[in-house]
């Protein structure tokens, strides 16, 4: 039937009438419209338009067309629910469009329509007559990728605003009635504020961005030595004490590589995942602002005011090409940094820095705050520099609870990642203070907003300098930072050659850890994950490869208990995937290491890596994974021992704080490793061997000790 379906396709490919003489070649898929609606908000004929909370489209659309589109969406959902009552419509494929649905909260729908990419070609028919064929590139768009885009959109919205229903109903017991006008308006405003910018940033041709920031929505962890981890942990605890528990959670990122260095054990990993994107967006914004300022300074001094206005527009386009390593969300789009800058400048009350010697103390010396009390240099029309300090509060909503929250235990999801119904989820509002240390280590502090004490601290200018001073002078922040930076550096040098024809990717669905190993110029893989999810160097990852990789992911999801899939395309590249269920990949090595390498100097990591390069290690890992079932029973015991063992590695600690509570016997508890091989004569055995080797090297990369 293959021939038949081919025939089908060619029939469905439209023959253009040539009236508009369309361009030959390929066009990219693009967003047609996006909306958020809730049918229960407009139950009667007269007020159906109230269902639509947000609508944005490529071109201006009359109100009745909007209603029609939303009406169709509801009809489709209703139709499919007759057969599939529990799982609603996810996507619709048509000849020219793709529609994607997401119901993030009961009753609330996010719905987008993407126009398919088009390929127009001149072909000769059987009689040798030339004709124009239009092909709609349905298979180039991944449903999973598009759905993931909506999912992380909602994730970020929720982080910044809370849930839709909370904004609409707050603590109302009765949500059957219609919400007040005012609340509806405020929800509509929140949605517009967030999505109007966000949704248009996506380039649906950039599958790599979608795959590595949305489909695999994880948190790359940058492992550090146990001793360093413990130092950070101590600092976390000390901060907690020092500020009367107002600093609830602490997060530390390596802002160059985007890796997570530390998180307070009290912080839910899903929250970390959402926060990471936001923190890096703020970092990027601050970098962009610095650039604007320095550019401004230069230009205002040399050119007239009319040119100065022109500079704003030109700087917009240059920014798109600037190789900014940044968080995925903001990496995609480009045209919006400037409005952001103006917005925040307008909104935040500015406090002029006095010449008063007191203020010298207020200014942080070892880094800068990106939220909270923010200092920035601004340039006036004369090109003179001056320092401006202003309050820029960032509020976030997290499911992680505050230690100050003394309210009785509400039903709380500790296994949040697996929980399907997030509707009962209780969010806590926090203030987020981001502090970027000069060595590009970024500290994020979360203070509960319900605490008056926290509120007072944040409003006090002295708090910020006190915080820095305390960390630097009493807790040796600079020393810790130095140790971490050397840690990170040695981890990057530590590499294992897979050969230049391989690429790999690792994702853990329970811990959300992810890693991609790429090839550098020396043909050695390095364990590194770029912020915006892009692969750099080595073989290029084409969209076809990524689609094939997503197919594998799909297969793992669809066919239960699939552990291994190898595929070879007609273009002769291999994509192999391995999924391990409910297995702590590194258990055996970890236990050995704890005994053997206590307080080993960091320099020695290089040599210990060399040792693990050889083949026996590779086979050891294989047997570990194969014997996983058998080992599951041992797992429990190990876990118990681990609990008593005070001196534990980073990963160990990770296990205790998160894995043990997150790891269940659930089918959702798995780790995936993907390998791409792009060499012509690679054999199945080669791929298998490399995959094993890669697994070993990943284990090494995650364990510095």
């Amino acid at each position, binding site marked *: 039937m293959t021939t038949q*379906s081919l025939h089908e396709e060619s029939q469905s490919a439209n023959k253009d009438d040539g009236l508009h003489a369309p361009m030959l070649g390929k066009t990219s898929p693009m967003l047609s419209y996006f909306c958020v609606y809730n049918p229960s908000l407009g139950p009667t004929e007269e007020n159906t338009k109230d269902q639509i909370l947000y609508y944005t489209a490529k071109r201006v659309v009359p109100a009745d067309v909007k209603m029609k589109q939303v009406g169709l969406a509801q009809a489709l959902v209703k139709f499919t629910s007759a057969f599939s009552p529990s799982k609603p419509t996810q996507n619709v494929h048509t*000849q020219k469009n793709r529609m994607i649905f997401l119901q993030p909260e009961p009753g609330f729908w996010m719905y987008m329509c993407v126009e398919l990419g088009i390929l127009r070609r001149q072909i000769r028919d059987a009689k040798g007559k030339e004709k124009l064929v239009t092909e709609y590139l349905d298979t180039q768009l991944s*449903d999973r990728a598009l759905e993931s885009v909506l999912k992380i959109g909602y994730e970020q919205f929720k982080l910044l605003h809370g849930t839709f229903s909370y904004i609409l109903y707050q603590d109302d017991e009765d949500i059957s009635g219609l919400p007040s006008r005012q609340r509806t308006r405020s929800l509509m405003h929140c949605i517009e504020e967030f999505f109007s910018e966000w949704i248009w940033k996506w380039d649906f041709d950039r599958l790599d961005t979608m795959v590595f920031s949305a489909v695999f929505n994880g948190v790359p962890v940058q492992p550090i030595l146990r001793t360093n981890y413990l130092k950070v942990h101590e600092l976390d605890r000390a901060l907690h004490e020092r500020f009367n528990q107002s600093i609830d959670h602490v997060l530390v990122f390596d802002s160059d590589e985007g890796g997570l260095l530390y998180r307070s054990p009290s912080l839910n990993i899903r929250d970390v995942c959402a926060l990471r994107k936001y923190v890096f967006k703020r970092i990027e914004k601050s970098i962009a602002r610095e650039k604007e300022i320095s550019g401004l300074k230069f230009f205002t001094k040399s050119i007239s005011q009319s040119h100065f206005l022109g500079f704003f527009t030109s700087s917009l386009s240059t920014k798109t090409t600037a190789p900014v390593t940044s968080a995925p969300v903001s990496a995609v789009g480009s045209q919006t940094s400037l409005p952001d800058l103006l917005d925040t400048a307008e909104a935040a009350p500015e406090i002029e820095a006095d010449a008063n010697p007191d203020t010298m103390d207020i200014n942080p010396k070892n880094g800068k705050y990106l939220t909270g009390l923010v200092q920035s240099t601004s340039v006036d029309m004369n090109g003179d520099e001056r320092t401006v300090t202003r309050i820029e509060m960032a509020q976030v909503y997290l499911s992680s609870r505050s230690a100050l929250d003394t309210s009785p235990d509400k039903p709380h999801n500790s296994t949040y990642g697996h929980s399907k119904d997030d509707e009962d989820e209780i969010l806590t509002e926090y203030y987020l203070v981001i502090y970027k240390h000069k060595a590009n280590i970024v500290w994020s502090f979360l203070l509960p907003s319900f605490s008056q004490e926290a509120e007072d601290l944040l409003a006090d200018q002295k708090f910020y300098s006190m915080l820095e001073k305390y960390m630097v002078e009493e807790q040796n922040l600079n020393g810790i930072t130095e140790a971490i930076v050397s840690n990170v550096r040695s981890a990057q040098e530590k590499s294992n050659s897979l050969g230049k024809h391989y690429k790999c990717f690792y994702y853990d669905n329970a811990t959300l850890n992810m890693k991609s190993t790429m090839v550098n110029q020396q043909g050695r893989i390095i364990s590194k994950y770029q912020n915006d999810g892009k692969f750099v160097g080595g073989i290029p990852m084409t969209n076809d490869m990524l689609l*094939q990789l997503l197919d594998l992911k799909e297969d793992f999801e669809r066919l239960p208990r699939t552990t291994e899939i190898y*595929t070879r*395309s007609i273009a002769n590249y291999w994509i192999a995937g391995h999924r391990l269920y409910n297995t702590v990949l590194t258990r055996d090595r970890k236990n050995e290491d704890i005994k053997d390498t206590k307080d080993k100097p960091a320099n020695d990591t290089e040599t210990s890596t060399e040792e693990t390069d050889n083949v026996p290690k590779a086979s050891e890992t294989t047997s570990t994974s194969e014997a996983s079932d058998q080992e599951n029973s041992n797992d429990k015991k190990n876990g118990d021992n681990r609990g008593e063992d005070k001196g534990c590695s980073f990963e160990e600690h990770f296990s205790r704080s998160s894995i043990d509570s997150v790891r269940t016997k659930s089918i959702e508890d798995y780790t995936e490793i993907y390998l791409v091989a792009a060499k012509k004569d690679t054999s*199945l055995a080669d791929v298998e061997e490399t995959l094993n080797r890669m697994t070993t090297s990943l284990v090494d990369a995650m364990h510095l000790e």
Partner: protein
Amino acid sequence: MEPVLIKKQDIEQDSDKTDEIASSCDSSYSSNSTMSELVKSHNKLRRQGSRSSVLANAIQQRRQSKQDHGSTWIQHKKHFFILSSAGKPIWTRYGDESRISSLMGVIQAIISFFQDGDDTIKSIHAGNHTFVFLLKDPLYFVAVSRTGESDGQLRDQLLYLHNQILSVLTSVQLTRIFEQRVNFDLRRLLGGTEVFLDSLATLFNNDHSFMLSALQCLRLSRSIRDQAGAILSDGRVKDLLYAMVVAKGRLVTLLRPRKHSLHPSDLHLLFNMLTGSTTFHTAESWTPLCLPKFNSQGFLHAYICYIERDISIVMISTSKDSFFELSEWKTTMVEAMKKKNVLENVLKASDELYTTEDVGVPALLHFMYKAKSHVQFTSPAFSGPYENDSDRKRLYRLYQHVYDRMHARTRVLKLYYHHSEHEIMLGWITSSFELYVVFGPATPKAVLIASSNQLLRWIKKNEDSLFILNSPVF
């Protein structure tokens, strides 16, 4: 002399009296079509009831609310619907056509909404459910399935259903009927042939030949196959197009004109007719038939006769008056086959299908091999773990999955290795063959490759009994 094919004009002349055609159709499927509506719907219910996926639920639900009967049908794993472009129900795999009008109305409304926007709906996904739409004006075909089959596979199945309808009516008649009356109730015209739609729908879950677009032949020693072919070729009557011997849905031999090979899709429809109804088991039959891939616009005439249990002779003629000649010739052939023990050997071969044990490759659990140039495939009978019903079903879907992944239009694969807790499947496609081979879950990859090569050698060695390498032509 009758025309070789009933051409467009010929049909135009007699199709004004559509009812007459309907009644002639009726008469050709004698026993089935004379049944009262009551008996038919009873049979349908019985057929549906025997499907285990819903039975337990159905009983439970019936207990819960007695007035709620008739809604359990929707829980079946896979539905097919055929409706007219005006939204009139024509056929449903489950449930009762007369009770699903509102659902058909919804489907029709959805389809036309997209058409109004100069677009065409193709599929919807909701959880494990896939909805596939095939628009073949004046008919719409819809599949609703949670079997894990891909959009493409379901679409192909809808195309088969479409072809089945064409085989009863021809495209010319179908178009004209609806041109004359948009609201025409096609059920009247299909009169009794719904049983073949039913059996097709079931066959999609049991027979990979639809997916592979290839024929499955009976494994038979070359000499016996040649003998059967020689008997068919000998004393051929005029106006004959094709003649074949079929055993249990597997082809024994086929006689064809040099210039006209028979499209696998047409043959599958024919095989479905043989197995899908008991009508043909009892007597010689003579029925008008359209083979859509051969010519979707006109009728041919099929002579069908079971000469032994499970073995039938099928002859396709261009003349509607050949029945007696063909019948006579059949008698001669059967005598010849009996005399040369051909019949006995074919019967034996169809009773004792080969298994993986006969192949002698260690750790091999099952396989499918398609010889691309012959458009034929071979597969052993289910043995070992796959004698178990649920394991066999899982294997069936796994084959479908692997096949689909390897044939995805834009991302064709040469090799696909799939490891799960139950088995390993390796799909391997070259320019000359497609091999899908199944091993136990503990088989190392090196063994897998070696064993697959060993299997390929075995197939090569037994090629002339596994496949029809040269069928008789005239």
